[in-house]
């Protein structure tokens, strides 16, 4: 379109369709604008297209439709230019190369060819490790780390370029309870600094506790989108996940999902 530039701040996803070969994964998906400062979680059953959508926004999967960040069409950016404004934490953990943690984070900064004037790359990398509480691992070899430690390193790699949009694909999958809380609290702080954060989470209780809004993807489209209390309902759990569940509030007001059992699939005619 040759109209005036869309000046809307935040992430706009409109009419996005993605397919793997001939199998459509998402069809014409649109979301209301995602605003800087908020954490939005993509949830839904396996193969609903959550990771695919995240990878498409990051520029790693082909799609049709429009995705803009602060009015800028992301599809028109070169990979390095995109990486300068988007931090992407993939589901796969960094491979066990003979590099230490500090080197990998510096690599995440230098690989896009970015030359920042404010601070040398190694200082910025170290600051991120300190912020995430893993500065003691700076000189540890990547191949000596546990899965959880590598996941923290992966987060460090995705935020070191100081992106305006942060995409996290199951960022807590390898973390123990304490680290899950630590990572998600940190993610909230990162969002509060004026960034848009989009995560994929499987655990609906975690999602409800740490997200401002949740998008439930189901059958190639958007099933529901809104604040956790509006989205995480027994009806949604029954229709989307096919589980019988109650959703209650604890004394502190947090949502609790109580699973009672599975709902058998309707007989196919």
């Amino acid at each position, binding site marked *: 379109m040759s109209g005036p530039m869309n000046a809307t701040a935040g992430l706009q996803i409109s009419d996005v369709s993605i397919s793997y070969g001939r199998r459509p994964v998402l069809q014409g998906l649109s979301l209301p604008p995602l605003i800087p400062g908020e954490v939005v979680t993509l949830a839904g059953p396996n193969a609903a297209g959550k990771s695919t959508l995240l990878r498409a926004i990051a520029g*790693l999967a082909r799609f049709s439709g429009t995705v803009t960040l602060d009015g800028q069409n992301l599809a028109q950016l070169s990979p390095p230019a995109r990486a300068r404004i988007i931090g992407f934490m993939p589901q796969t953990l960094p*491979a066990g190369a*003979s590099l230490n943690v500090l*080197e990998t984070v510096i690599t995440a900064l230098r690989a896009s060819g970015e030359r920042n004037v404010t601070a040398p790359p190694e200082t910025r990398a170290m600051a991120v490790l300190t912020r995430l509480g893993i500065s003691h691992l700076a000189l540890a070899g990547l191949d000596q780390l546990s899965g959880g430690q590598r996941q923290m390193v992966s987060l460090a790699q995705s935020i070191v370029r100081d992106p305006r949009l942060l995409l996290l694909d199951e960022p807590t999958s390898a973390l123990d309870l304490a680290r899950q809380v630590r990572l998600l609290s940190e993610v909230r702080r990162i969002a509060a600094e004026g960034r848009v954060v989009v995560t994929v989470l499987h655990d609906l209780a975690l999602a409800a506790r740490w997200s401002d809004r949740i998008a439930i993807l189901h059958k190639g489209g958007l099933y529901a989108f809104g604040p956790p209390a509006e989205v995480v309902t027994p009806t949604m759990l029954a229709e989307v996940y096919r589980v019988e569940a109650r959703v209650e509030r604890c004394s502190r007001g947090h949502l609790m999902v109580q699973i009672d059992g599975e709902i058998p699939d309707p007989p196919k005619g």
Partner: protein
Amino acid sequence: MSDTAPLHDYHRQNRRRLWLVLAMIVMALLAVVVDLTTGPSGLPLSETIRALTGGEVARGTSVIIWQVRLPIAIMALLVGAALALAGAEMQTVLENPLAEPFTLGVSAAAALGAGVAIVLGLTLPFLPPGWSITANAFLFSLGALGLLQLMGRLRGGGPEVLILFGIALNFTAAAFLSLLQFIASAEDLQQLVIWTMGSLQAVTWTSVTILALILLLTVPFALAASWRLTALRLGEEQARGFGVDVTALRRWALLRVSLLAATAVSMVGVIGFIGLAGPHIARMLVGEDHRFMLPASIATGALLMSAASTLSKLLIPGTLLPIGLVTSLIGLPIFFWLILRGRSAR
């Protein structure tokens, strides 16, 4: 503040790596000097140095040094550098520690090209005399890598696909080479077999210059891609998330590998294990930050090849062994040691 301590260590480690790379380069150059002083005519070191620096020496001595030993010694250095750089880039972009021009069929294709020239007498028209074998070997090995890239692109080339094609290519070229050997005359067969063992004897200043130019053309681009190559070591998804155009990185790296390997192999024949051992030793010395790893691979390959050139003259006194045979002989024990050492470290 305690958080500056790792930075201090990081800088110190990089200084150490820089020194290691420089030390390897110096050792490679020293190996060339040793290579120059060994040979059937047994010239003493002082005589060699005098000939090199333009001092007063017998005319025969000057010819031996300048027209025989120096081009061979420099060619050994350059071939080692080229094959090790090709191996290092290939291992990174194909995400496989066993990838190198030798294992993925480039050498076999070159040998097939040489065989076509030697046995069938088929080659390009209008070539200067003496270049038919080299030209065929170059075209075949370049063609092999071109085919590899093409297949990869048609099939939506992930690294595994490229590796499989490379191995298939290797066996295909080897099968056709066997066929040629079977139908070859006794003389042709002998020439072909010796060619496939690798030899520096036919080296001229022209071939030295060509390979040097190819290195000058490719090394700067390889070094410029250092950060992107390091990023790829963390995984393709990671690298793409960092803004690396992995497809373009692979394509350009494989083009450099093609030029380096095809040129080197076409001029000196099949040289095994330098492309494998060079990068592995470099990685052990300086880690996988490619700013250090690539130069270290180049220096290590050059050193190994230079040492092999010297050993090829010394191992059996009075006999010059094919250098490809020697690199395999010294490369294999190093390789076994690397595998065993790697296991015990875990």
